[in-house]
């Protein structure tokens, strides 16, 4: 059996059609788009077309609202730092405890510089409390930055509604949508979202290209200054091949968005149902009724995620885990902790994330090997005895020496 890739929230395979449109920009149209000669005259047109392809996918009003960046992280940093620079009197930021580090680390740094950061908690299903959110909104807040969909659980936040609330309070709204764009339909011109981040490599474009959507009229300060590229909003010679590739990837994503929400979702659902039925003491994390169609995050209790991944890898299956050991830290994933998932389960979470390249036969293969893997590791676990966990596991095995 060919290797099975179920780690599409980490990154995706570049679509062959994307590679094909990129190649001429390496070998023929390699001129600097700012130059006046025939090596460059097709490039500006290529960039313009790509801008329109991105525009179509996210449904924004103007193609000039698309700013190409080097990645999703750059788009996030630009959005946050722009909001505070453009509104120097506002010293508060609202975000959530489950954001990606690309948001949380910037907020941590700003907190050290004197900003007040409101990190909204989530409940056990990973949901926000909008009443509490409403109370935080004030004229002191420079920016609300809330992810559209969570990278670990796939849980979708009601960002359109939250943007309306922010707008009513006169507060700028940014969303990190790197996991959502291309997986769920969106029409930005019908929302009050001011800024939105996209990452190319999450939707079958290459790594090293991203987008910051900036609604016309939103106050803005560039992060990178220099040349006049992107109308001076993001200096630096355009990554023309990757921009054109991203455009193509957006066009394909729009074409496949129904497939994503029917066929890809069916694969995810079959895997999830099969695993939770066959394997005792495991459960799906996040908001089961409000999730990305391609993601499932399952906690296998009393065993540890990195061990599971190593055995999966040996069986030719790629997935990822929220355990501490996979990242080399001492704490399991902050998303799992925020949802108050017990430690015995948080360390054993495995995320399977699909794309349109997966197939039902791959799902069946995972369903075949996973029960054995879990059983093998549970046999080694001090929290497991025979066919069941030891009674009251966290007390039954609680070493005095930590």
């Amino acid at each position, binding site marked *: 059996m060919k290797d099975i890739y179920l780690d599409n929230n980490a990154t995706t395979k570049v679509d062959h059609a994307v590679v094909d449109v990129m190649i001429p920009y390496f070998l023929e149209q390699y001129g600097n788009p700012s130059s006046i000669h025939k090596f460059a005259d097709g490039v500006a047109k290529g960039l313009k077309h790509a801008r329109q392809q991105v525009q179509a996918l996210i449904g924004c009003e103007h193609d000039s609202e698309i700013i190409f960046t080097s990645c999703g992280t750059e788009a996030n940093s630009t959005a946050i730092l722009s909001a505070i620079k453009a509104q120097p009197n506002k010293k508060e930021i609202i975000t959530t405890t489950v954001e990606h580090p690309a948001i949380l680390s910037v907020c941590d740094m700003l907190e050290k510089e004197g900003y007040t950061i409101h990190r909204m908690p989530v409940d056990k299903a990973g949901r926000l409390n909008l009443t509490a959110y409403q109370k935080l909104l004030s004229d002191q807040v420079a920016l609300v930055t809330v992810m559209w969909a969570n990278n670990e659980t796939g849980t979708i936040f009601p960002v359109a509604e939250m943007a309306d609330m922010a707008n009513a309070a006169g507060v700028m709204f940014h969303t990190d949508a790197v996991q959502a764009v291309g997986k769920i339909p969106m029409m930005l011109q019908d929302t009050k979202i001011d800024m939105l981040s996209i990452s190319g490599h999450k939707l079958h474009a290459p790594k090293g290209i991203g987008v910051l959507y900036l609604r016309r009229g939103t106050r803005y300060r560039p992060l990178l200054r220099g040349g006049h590229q992107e109308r001076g909003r993001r200096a630096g010679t355009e990554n023309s091949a990757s921009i054109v590739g991203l455009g193509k990837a957006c066009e394909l994503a729009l074409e496949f968005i129904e497939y994503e929400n029917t066929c890809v979702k069916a694969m995810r659902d079959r895997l999830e149902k099969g695993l939770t039925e066959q394997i005792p003491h495991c459960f799906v994390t996040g908001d089961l009724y409000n999730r990305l169609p391609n993601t499932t995050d399952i906690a296998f209790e009393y065993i540890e995620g*990195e061990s599971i991944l190593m055995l999966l890898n040996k069986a030719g299956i790629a997935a990822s885990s929220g355990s501490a*050991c996979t990242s080399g830290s001492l*704490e399991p994933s902050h998303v799992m902790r925020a949802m108050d998932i017990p*430690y015995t389960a948080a*360390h054993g979470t495995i995320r399977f994330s699909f794309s349109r390249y997966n197939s039902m036969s791959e799902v069946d293969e995972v369903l075949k090997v996973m029960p054995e893997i879990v059983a093998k590791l549970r046999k080694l*676990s001090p929290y497991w005895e025979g066919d069941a966990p030891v009674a009251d596991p966290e007390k039954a095995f609680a070493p005095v020496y930590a």
Partner: protein
Amino acid sequence: MWDYSDKVKEHFFNPKNAGAVVDANATGEVGSISCGDALRLTLKVDDDSEIILEAGFQTFGCGSAIASSSVLTEIIKGMTLDEAAKVTNQDIADQLEGLPPEKMHCSVMGREALQAAIANYRGEVWKDDHEEGALICKCFAIDAVMIEEMVWANKLRTVEDVTNFTKAGGGCAACHEDIEAILEKVLAEKGEKFDPTAASVEAPAKIAAVKVPLTNLQRIKKIEMVLDSLRPALMADGGDVELVEVLGNTAYVNMTGACNGCQMAAMTIAGIQQRLMEVMGEFIKVVPASEMSKLVSIEVA
């Protein structure tokens, strides 16, 4: 994915002595569920000879935790308790052909479980002699607890101080922000404020540099003095060093005795140069005298 050795993979995929030993008479438990690592080691010890007859492990943890537990049971089977007590975490890591720095704590956990089991057999209470913190400096494998202790003990105040005393931060510089955060925290506990521009505390064993430029005669005398101070160490290895000529900032030396032709001579010369620069406070180049003839002939030509 971690760069695990084949040995780690071998012990992970096919662990030895998994499960609890039946009729065990010694048990050691370490770790915590919150950190994602927990280990129970059970031993069957012969009461007369104190030889470990059987060893078994139950581990909740990552690949290297399971491999460390497995290899530990293999190491100690057949040992007496006194022999087993001498097993270090480095022994465990070595048996596994090395562990990534972030994973060394897995071997520490193995050693601790062993110590706890031995204490349990002897009816003693084992004392955890160290606390492990989050890994801060990945270049030199220094954790937060170690840095905190050094900051407390030596009244350290800057990142440079921490690097001088612990090596942490002396490599890729990625952890400087983390070290600053530790300094901020510890200094706040002491009621002080962290000031990144504070003067360094006295750096360990650095000789005050001479500021005034030296005359050539002074320079030669100083070089002789430094070489004299290094001579005993060289002679202990059966070698010696002789100053042949000083031209400007270049000192030409002959490595004699065992040093002559030794593979390490280049390193020794670099060491001498380093020492000379420290003491004299100026740049000195140390060159084997054999290079001098080339230099002279070029000048003549």
